[in-house]
């Protein structure tokens, strides 16, 4: 197990190193000078040079890479070119919206998908099954931003139950913040729940056809008992994999929804920083997301090994 873990750790470090180089190089070759962008039409060349000096842009690219990576190792992500505040603080602030939003959406999606998937699988071919399959088909097909706008129209503009968007902050009260995240979370959860419900259904149907379920039925369990006691657990493996994938998507991929609901999350930070050529913010946020994905994969690898002893032996 130790050897296996060390091997995984080594591959994790190599992935991170390669990712940092790729991110840095790709972002550095993008045309556009942050200092020029900030100073605009009337800026004199000497003013731009002075600002570049102030921002530390006049040193070589290699030196900047080294500074960036060594800074990150000590938890210092540098200072944003445009906002002039530490990048780590900015990411921290945005994280308090993106992370709860992702968790909220995931929770909703699971709460919808599990019962729907189980119902559809246990009553295969019934009206309920057809209904679930039809609805989820629609849920996968509807773009979430369109659904989001529809909800704004109904719940914010017509019924006035919710704000059209924005985020009051957690210090303004827990329920107020949760309320502000509700419409965005539902719009994010809808397609995810549809996918998850379909995966749940097909995984359940697959396991229901397995030999061990037949044995369980042969021992006298009803179809329902066999489903709950034996099939469900085994069907969880593909479902959990999908949930894992969805979580990293929700964290990084909520950008369009963040725009529709003008939420100051991570996605909008990246979007804005790219157009402002705030390169250091883009680099650091992307790196952080890569880190999150790599860490999740690493934990999943370890979990596999814990669950499945064959993996440990093979390595």
């Amino acid at each position, binding site marked *: 197990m130790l050897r296996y873990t060390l091997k995984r750790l080594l591959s994790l470090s190599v992935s991170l190193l390669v990712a940092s180089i790729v991110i840095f190089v790709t972002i550095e070759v993008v045309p556009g000078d942050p200092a020029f962008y900030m100073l605009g039409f009337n800026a004199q060349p000497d003013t731009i040079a*002075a600002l570049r000096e102030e921002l530390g842009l006049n040193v070589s690219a290699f030196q900047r890479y080294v500074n960036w990576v060594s800074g990150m190792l000590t938890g210092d992500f540098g200072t944003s070119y445009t906002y002039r505040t530490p990048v780590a603080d900015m990411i921290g602030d945005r994280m308090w919206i993106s992370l709860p939003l992702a968790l909220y959406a995931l929770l909703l999606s699971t709460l919808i998908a599990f019962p729907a998937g189980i119902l559809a699988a246990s009553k295969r071919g019934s009206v309920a099954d057809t209904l679930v399959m039809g609805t989820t088909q629609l849920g996968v097909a509807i773009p979430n931003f369109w659904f989001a706008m529809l909800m704004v129209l109904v719940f914010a503009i017509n019924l*006035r139950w919710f704000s*059209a*968007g924005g985020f009051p902050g957690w210090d303004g009260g827990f329920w107020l913040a949760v309320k502000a995240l509700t419409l965005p979370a539902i719009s994010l959860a809808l397609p995810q729940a549809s996918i998850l419900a379909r995966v749940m259904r097909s995984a359940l149907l697959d396991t229901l056809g397995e030999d061990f379920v037949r044995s369980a039925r042969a021992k006298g369990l009803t179809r329902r008992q066999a489903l709950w006691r034996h099939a469900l657990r085994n069907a969880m493996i593909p479902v959990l994999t999908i949930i894992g994938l969805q979580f990293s998507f929700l964290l990084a991929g909520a950008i369009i929804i963040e725009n529709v609901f*003008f939420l100051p999350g991570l996605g909008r930070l990246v979007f804005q920083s790219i157009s402002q050529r705030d390169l250091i913010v883009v680099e650091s946020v992307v790196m952080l997301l890569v880190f999150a994905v790599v860490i999740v994969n690493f934990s999943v690898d370890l979990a596999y090994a814990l669950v499945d002893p064959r993996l440990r032996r093979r390595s």
Partner: protein
Amino acid sequence: MIYGKTGFAVAAALAFAITGGVAQAAKTDIVVGLQLEPPHLDPTGAAAGAIDQVVYSNVFEGLTRFASDGSIVPGLAKSWEISDDGLTYIFQLNEGVTFHDGSAMDAEDVKFSLDRARAEDSTNAQKPLFADIASVEVMDPMSVKVTLSKQNGSFLFNMAWGDAVIVAPESIADIKTKPVGTGPFVLSNWVQGDRIELARNPDYWGEAVSLEKATFKFIPDPTAAFAAVMAEDVNAFMAFPAPENLPQFDADPRFKVLVGSTEGETILAINNKMPPFDNVKVREAIAHAIDRQAIIDGAMFGYGTPIGTHFAPHNPAYLDLTANSAYDPEKSKALLAEAGFADGITTTLKLPPPSYARRGGEIIASQLKAVGITVEISNLEWAQWLEQVFRGKDFGLSIVSHTEPMDIGIYGREDYYFQYGKPEFQALMADLDASTDPAERTSILQAAQTMISEDYVNAYLFQLANTGVANMKIEGLWANAPTQAIDLTGVSWTD
């Protein structure tokens, strides 16, 4: 549905009865929506218009300031004397002015601010505004003498810009996140990416403002902006990004639409040094190929004033020269043939992100196509546009709105991206700087407008309109935008 609505009305009426009308009558806070968030709050250290929108006159003040009609009125300086040769300005400062940190504002602070802006290592985006200052001297705590190296008839105007506000040496280090000015509002909270909150400054030296709290909320997406106004999440939205929604607001009894002027001359910029545009006939052909009203109607939904030169129509010195470039496709074709391009021209049209450029670009492309000019459109981000078009001069045509006030002087700069810089024009600008007589200045400005119009330097499209939407009960918001400011000092709620 009807039942549901009635139930709602009853509940609302009950809520109103419980809370009473008192809270309504005393409404002293406002939420203003804006499309762009300022990167930081130092108006003296970046070009971003969003900074001025939030802080101009609200948080920071200069020696002079713009009034809503664009005229220059006293600010921190209560009066000034100009020497006969026009080289010396003595400013008398208002008494009892304090910065938000409690320290007094005096002549030393003025000297510090002006010297900082014109220093060698200054990062002031409008450093040319200060170029003619030779020295700044403190005469006594309440008077400052500014000596110019040459006459500059625009000096008082220059001092009204957001880039020329007075800051204090004690608070300069953190000015980007903790702005300490002399204005009627102080920064109380900034949730980056979401909103900036200002609170009334109880120790303000001037006339007290009626708002106690003002929140600027940043909503970049036009559809989201529309939703926020409709849901009344914001009380006003200035420089509203989707003109197509304005008629709907106008028809809604809850809102009023504010339409005013800006300093934004929107032009089809032409690369004057690049063949075939170095031929004035070709530029004239482009000018006659364009139907301005079709662009205003199609791209701006009718908001905008046609212009025939690079000058704001609301300025008293404006000349209507649109007739020089009247829409005449036949004349345009004839001019192209005369210039030797009877078979047509192919060039590039590089467009920055704003909708006036992207939508206007499509319309212009088809209008040019009709006279035989084929354009290849490329959509650029601002950073790319600055790099390729503005700095690299790698373009044939481009559409951009020049939002700086009184910026006709850019035509004298040879290295400016459209590359005109005719010596005769430079001579006019030198005359203008040397003159402080209003009548003489007007005639020079009109000669300058005529020269660039007749040289067809660029194709002049329209003056960008300032369009905003506000709650019916809000008074005092500026309809015009003589600078990119949302001045809240005169804003109040009626009833």
